[in-house]
């Protein structure tokens, strides 16, 4: 005891007491804190945000600003949500190669894990739509015919009858929906990327979106059968007219030349 009281005026005493107090309160916290599981999640989430922030600083910050607040070269990302990030990055549209009327899709260079990290970071900036689950965009319980009607009412005016794409003003365009991942179609409807209007659940319900995706899968998917033969791009009368001229009339003229070249020889008498 004497020893202790003799050292109580030691310069390090305050520090030792502080440490002991910290250990004590920390121990108490460890005893009474909420379950371990939640704590672990919190760490992973913050880790993902941390990693996402790094990726963001490298790939995105030059246009969207260091804090996602947007610059003259790119819009603010506050509140766009994880769904927007997942769509833009996973389809290769972002990071953009160059400014232009519209950023086209290209090869995606990020892994899904990295995309999730980026999405976590952007989602942390403000509340927005999250990445949909398979249950939301999957084919179970979808009404294809209803989806077709919805598609023709809401989507066909830009994307064509079966989603072959179409032109917009000044070099912008509605891309073809052929071979697009159902998840990305869902996200595009939800978030309205680039020149597309968004269709939140209040406009097109979750079920509606599911129907539309199922319709697209039926008429423009990998297993779609073209009932009448080559579909010539599915673009309507322009490609049909071109085909009729080049292959139809072209073949007939070739046949006419062939027939005209083979004639009966006049009898020599």
């Amino acid at each position: 005891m004497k020893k202790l009281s003799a050292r109580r005026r030691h310069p390090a005493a305050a520090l030792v007491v502080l440490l002991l107090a910290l250990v004590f309160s920390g121990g108490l916290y460890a005893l009474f804190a909420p379950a371990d599981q939640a704590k672990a999640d919190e760490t992973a989430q913050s880790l993902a945000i941390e990693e996402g922030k790094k990726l963001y600083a490298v790939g995105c910050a030059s246009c969207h600003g260091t804090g996602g607040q947007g610059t003259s070269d790119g819009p603010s990302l506050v509140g766009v949500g994880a769904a927007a990030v997942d769509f833009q990055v996973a389809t290769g549209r972002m990071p953009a190669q160059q400014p232009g009327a519209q950023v086209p899709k290209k090869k995606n260079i990020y892994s899904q894990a990295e995309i999730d990290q980026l999405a976590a970071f952007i989602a942390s900036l403000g509340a927005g739509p999250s990445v949909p689950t398979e249950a939301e965009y999957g084919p179970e319980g979808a009404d294809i015919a209803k989806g077709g009607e919805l598609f023709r009412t809401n989507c066909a005016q830009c994307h064509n009858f079966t989603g072959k794409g179409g032109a917009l003003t000044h070099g912008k365009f509605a891309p073809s929906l052929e071979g697009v991942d159902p998840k990305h179609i869902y996200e595009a409807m939800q978030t309205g990327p680039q020149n597309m209007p968004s269709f939140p659940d209040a406009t097109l319900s979750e079920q509606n979106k599911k129907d539309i995706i199922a319709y697209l899968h039926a008429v423009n998917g990998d297993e779609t059968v073209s009932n009448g033969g080559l579909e010539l791009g599915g673009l309507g009368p322009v490609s049909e007219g071109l085909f009729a001229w080049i292959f139809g009339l072209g073949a007939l003229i070739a046949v006419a030349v062939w027939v005209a070249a083979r004639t009966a020889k006049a009898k020599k008498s």
Partner: protein
Amino acid sequence: MSTTESSTESRARGKAPAGERVADWADGRLGIYSLAKANMRKIFPDHWSFMLGEVCLYSFIIIILTGVYLTLFFHPSMNEVEYHGSYVPLQGQLMSEAFNSTMHISFDVRGGLLIRQIHHWAALIFLAGMFVHMMRVFFTGAFRKPREVNWLFGFLLFVLGMFTGFTGYSLPDDLLSGTGVRFMEGAILSVPIVGTYLSFFLFGGEFPGGDFVARFYSIHILLLPGIMLGLVVGHLILVFYHKHTQFAGPGKSNNNVVGMPLLPVYMAKAGGFFFLVFGVIAAISAIATINPIWSMGPYRPDQVSTGAQPDWYMGFSEGLIRVMPGWEIDFWGHTLVLGVFIPLIIFPLVLVAIAVYPFIESWVTGDKREHHILDRPRNAPTRTAFGVAWITWYMVLLIGGGNDLWATHFHLSINAITWFVRIAFFVAPVIAFVVTKRICLGLQRRDREKVLHGRETGIIKRLPHGEFIEVHEPLSQDALHTLTAHEQYKPAEIGPTVDENGVERKVKGSEKLRAKLSEAYFGEESQIPKPTVEEYKEITSGHGHH
């Protein structure tokens, strides 16, 4: 008729063969012997371009045959029904009976889809064939006297074909064609004063109403094809009556036709060609789909798709509307939609421009003679240039009609294409005219060179004193004839402006215009004088070098 004597004679020798007796029977009632005698040996010249008309005739026949089959299953009604056919993505959708029955034809009638596709492909090819056939007639000057009326018959067939095609395209009542009908309704509405009344009359009330499919059906299967069939018959009778034109060549004159007789050669060729045309169209219809209405869905006025275009022959009207600025003026409380009305006015003018050309040309040349020998396009530079300018005009409008597909497929701005078409609508035909005329004159010079100096053989000869010359081989007499057979007009002059009494007569404005046009057609700037006999003799008699 004429054979009573011979038949009694043959009876004396025993019974005539069955074929002869049938023929005699028919001749007594139909007069086939004299008909056959007059026409069996009818001569047709051989050239592949003379068979373009046949392509049209045969595709027309194919369209009629397949069309009859389609009428067996098609219900021209706009009553609303629910779909319960084989095509899953439309199950339970509401649609008109017209659309439903077209779906039925496509999926549930044996061979229905193939016949539908043959019908539609044949229609596109029919119109394309008529276009090319018309251009063949145009560029070779086959429309000249005595064939002006037949030119007009052909032109009418083309225009009626366009409208028959349009009404047929509208019948399935799908989302694409419904948009086209809506387009047409908009054009009708833009007519000042009477537009609304016309539209209500045509559709039996507010668009789309419940009538138009049935009305278009009557027009499509009865009215227009009936008129067309009559015109086709008239067209063919006139071809027989005028006899076929031919290209210049040895032994061919304005008074003869050199070729093969109708029987047996042309009957075999034409008959065989029909099956070839049918085969090609059927093969295309089996390979490629056309107007897949199941992808488009039933028409509803509140829906529309991008890429909504008419079939190609109506494409130029689509182009006119797409590139026209959306002008609108308010006139005494009435809105004049010039953005639609002006294209509606230009639409017939584009067609009439080519239809009236033969009459303009015959007025300028003042030539009242018959022409049975065809021109080579280069030897009528102004006509050829006019034709190419017209085609250019038409093609520019087609680009306008498909501006969205040009934009997406060539990564262009649709606005830039629209502006290109607006400017090219005025400029491109002029450029095409000038360029074509220069090319024609260049070709004429080449012909002249060939006649006078012969063909370049590519053989280089070295003369004893070291000079190198290229050996030119003189053309054969046949080739010389072919290259110099055409006739060259002299520009028309106004004529004496003073009569024999020295009184000045008034020169009419039309006369002056005609002289001016004639100068433009046949003046020094517009044709290269063809070599004369003297020139040829002078150069081949050994005085000249080449």
